[in-house]
């Protein structure tokens, strides 16, 4: 490893790559070649650096300077100024939205301040396609420690003592799961990595796989050693081509180095990993459905017990763990269970990765200690709400979760507190909403997802969610009646109580939690037929405030259906019968005379 060499790390996350990051990478290489520097400066495409809203981002090592919002055209200046003359390019440094300060290094960047990176320790830092780089950052050291100094039961005890709970949503203690699989004697056992990541609006697992695939491979091998399994399977969505290709590269390299395959590191432990492809079904993230899908069938859940740890893939004991859960394993082996359990809250240890998105300034991937409050996440890490608007709610747990409101801002985020607040941890999507978001529409959005994704096996989930969605559709169109709210609530409870799998059991959560926290908003929809957030088109009316209108006629000219009339220099009026609520007039008006009611 030539550590002293200058390296330009270009963020290879989807956000940055999609925003001309690829062209930037090419230009940097061309500029270096033009200056005959291609042999002394490395250009590396990393995984997501977590600063998604500021992208494309690059980091220059060893100076550790981060440039944000870099355009392909900036490559010339970066090479001629920073690389060749050692001068920082001030205009490409990140400006803190609060203080106006220029921040250059990772430490200084406010989105990073409250963060603690365990699962994401190498994301954005190493070259995910180089096993040497990963090894230089301690990859496979934990596996070596386990194989040489620990018995399988020692590994299990360590993981149990650390208090690690599954990051895939359920929060089941990982060590206990491994112990169950260990105790079930069988000639064949399987270690499965759940990389299905179905929550719409979440990209944590994908970022780990794209940024540090060896972390997952190593942990799966450690799990295999602990439960005495020789075969690993990664179930990943076919829609994640970059993650798939990096995993394939990583597996190939690990085999070449003897870190996967027979007699790993000269021990008598053998373990290999194969990739299985999902094909776009949210319910396949549920572990029994996932196993059926890997067996080539429709991914429909089945009743537990038997739990997979007892009888799973091809009816053999099978561990199913989430990507992020695996990503926590090696540091625990290397640093000890006490180190891990000293982080977090009483019953939720360690850190959690969140995909922070929505109406927030710093969208991105963050990792914070369990117990961090929502206020810290939104204000300090997220940089506050966009455009100075007012915070309204944050959704965790995706379509299975609920919303947190102002009163939850200071609640420490952990597994149990989120459940108590009517939501759940889920896989880690955290979507922030502001005053312009209609909570009835949000609930409808999540139900639409559930209706599409229900596997159809049980009627409460298949039919009940569809009926609920219809009711919400009615309400947002102004056709609801007050009795609908009770009806909704009843349906929620029936579906929760009578569905087979977690999808059905949790699908009413978005409705229940918005009904509970934003009852007045639902009532406004069904009684006075108004949408307080001004989102439901059918409930809006555009209206001209006569006192503000100067009669410039701009609105009348832009209206595509001629709904606005009035004389020049006289206040205009909108005919609600003709108006199609396109909003063109409001956009055009320079005098703030047009409002939505």
């Amino acid at each position, binding site marked *: 490893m030539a550590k002293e060499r200058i390296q330009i790390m270009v963020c290879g996350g*989807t956000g940055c790559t999609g925003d001309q990051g690829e062209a930037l990478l090419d230009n940097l290489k061309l500029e270096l070649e033009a200056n005959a520097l291609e042999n002394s400066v490395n250009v590396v495409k990393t995984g997501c650096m977590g600063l998604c809203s500021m992208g494309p981002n690059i980091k220059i090592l060893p100076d550790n300077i981060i440039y944000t919002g870099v355009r392909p055209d900036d490559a010339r200046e970066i090479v001629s100024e920073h690389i060749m003359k050692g001068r920082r390019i001030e205009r490409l440094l990140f400006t803190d939205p609060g203080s106006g300060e220029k921040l250059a290094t990772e430490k200084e960047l406010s989105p990073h301040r409250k963060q603690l990176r365990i699962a994401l320790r190498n994301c954005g830092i190493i070259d995910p396609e180089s096993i040497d780089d990963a090894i230089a950052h301690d990859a496979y050291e934990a596996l070596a420690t386990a194989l040489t100094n620990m018995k399988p039961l020692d590994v299990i005890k360590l993981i149990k003592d650390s208090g690690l709970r599954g990051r895939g949503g359920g929060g089941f203690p990982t060590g206990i799961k491994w112990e169950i699989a260990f105790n079930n004697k069988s000639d064949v056992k399987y270690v499965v990595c759940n990389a299905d990541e179905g929550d719409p609006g*979440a990209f944590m697992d*994908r970022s780990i796989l794209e940024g540090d695939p060896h972390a997952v491979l190593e942990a799966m091998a450690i799990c295999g050693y602990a439960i005495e399994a020789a075969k690993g399977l990664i179930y990943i969505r076919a*829609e994640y081509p970059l993650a798939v290709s990096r995993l394939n590269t990583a597996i190939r390299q690990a085999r070449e180095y003897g870190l996967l395959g027979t007699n790993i590191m000269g021990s008598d432990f053998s373990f290999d990993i194969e990739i299985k492809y999902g094909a*776009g079904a949210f319910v396949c993230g549920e572990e029994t459905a996932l196993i059926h899908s890997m067996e080539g069938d429709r991914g429909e859940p089945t009743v537990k017990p038997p739990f997979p740890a007892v009888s799973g893939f091809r009816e053999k004991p099978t561990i199913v763990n989430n990507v992020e859960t695996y990503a926590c394993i090696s540091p625990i082996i290397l640093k000890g269970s006490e180190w891990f359990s000293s982080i977090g809250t009483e019953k939720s240890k360690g850190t959690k990765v969140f995909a922070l*998105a929505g109406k927030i300034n710093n969208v991105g991937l963050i990792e914070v200690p369990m117990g961090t409050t929502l206020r810290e996440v939104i204000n300090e890490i997220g940089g506050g709400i966009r455009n100075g608007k007012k915070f309204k709610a944050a959704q965790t747990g995706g379509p299975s979760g609920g919303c947190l409101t102002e009163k939850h801002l200071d609640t420490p985020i952990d597994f149990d507190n989120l459940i108590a607040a009517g939501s759940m941890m889920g896989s880690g999507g955290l979507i922030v909403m502001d005053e312009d978001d209609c909570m009835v529409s949000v609930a409808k959005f999540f139900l639409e997802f559930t209706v599409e994704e229900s596997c159809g096996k049980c009627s409460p989930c298949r039919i009940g969610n569809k009926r609920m969605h219809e009711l919400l559709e009615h309400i947002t169109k102004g056709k609801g009646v007050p009795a609908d709210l009770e009806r909704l609530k009843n349906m929620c409870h029936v579906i929760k109580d009578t569905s087979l799998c977690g999808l059905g059991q949790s699908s009413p959560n978005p409705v229940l939690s918005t009904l509970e926290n934003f009852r007045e908003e639902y009532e406004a929809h069904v009684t006075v037929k108004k949408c307080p957030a001004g989102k439901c088109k059918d409930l809006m009316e555009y209206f001209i405030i006569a006192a503000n209108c100067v009669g410039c006629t701009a609105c009348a000219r832009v209206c595509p259906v001629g709904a606005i009339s009035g004389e020049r220099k006289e206040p205009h009026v909108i005919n609600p019968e003709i108006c199609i609520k396109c909003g063109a007039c409001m956009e055009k008006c320079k005098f703030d005379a047009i409002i939505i009611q």
Partner: protein
Amino acid sequence: MSSIKIELRQEDINKIKEICTSFGNDPRELINVLHKCQEHFGYLPAEVQEVISDELEVPVAKIYGVVTFYSFFTMTPRGKHPISICMGTACYVRGAETVLEEFRKELGLQVGQTTEDGKFSLSSLRCVGACGLAPVVMIGDKTYGRVAPDDVRNILKEYE
């Protein structure tokens, strides 16, 4: 089932057989076989499913059941430029619905349909992992970020 009737050529049939053999004609590998076939043909018409049925010795009804269960598999050909609008939560709260609506209007298509000339098809997907750019639209492999309804016409012009 799909209304489009197609005639498979002998070389297509051979290709399917080859794919099935590469997975040992093991019915448990059905999903992998379907992935490979879709990669090759672009979609999975009934006729392709029938050949797979013979090769793996599984009823065609089961294959149809699997194909229709997973949203990644499709029985209608995608357009030359497949347009996917991200309807993940982050994109939704930043207005993806209005963008989808605009594409629908411009192309006269519903989600899941392809234009008659086979040029564009319209679909929605969930979170492409670029939430920082929300709302996000993908056309083929190209990502468009922070798309507003007003941009739609210009984006489509690039493909004329």
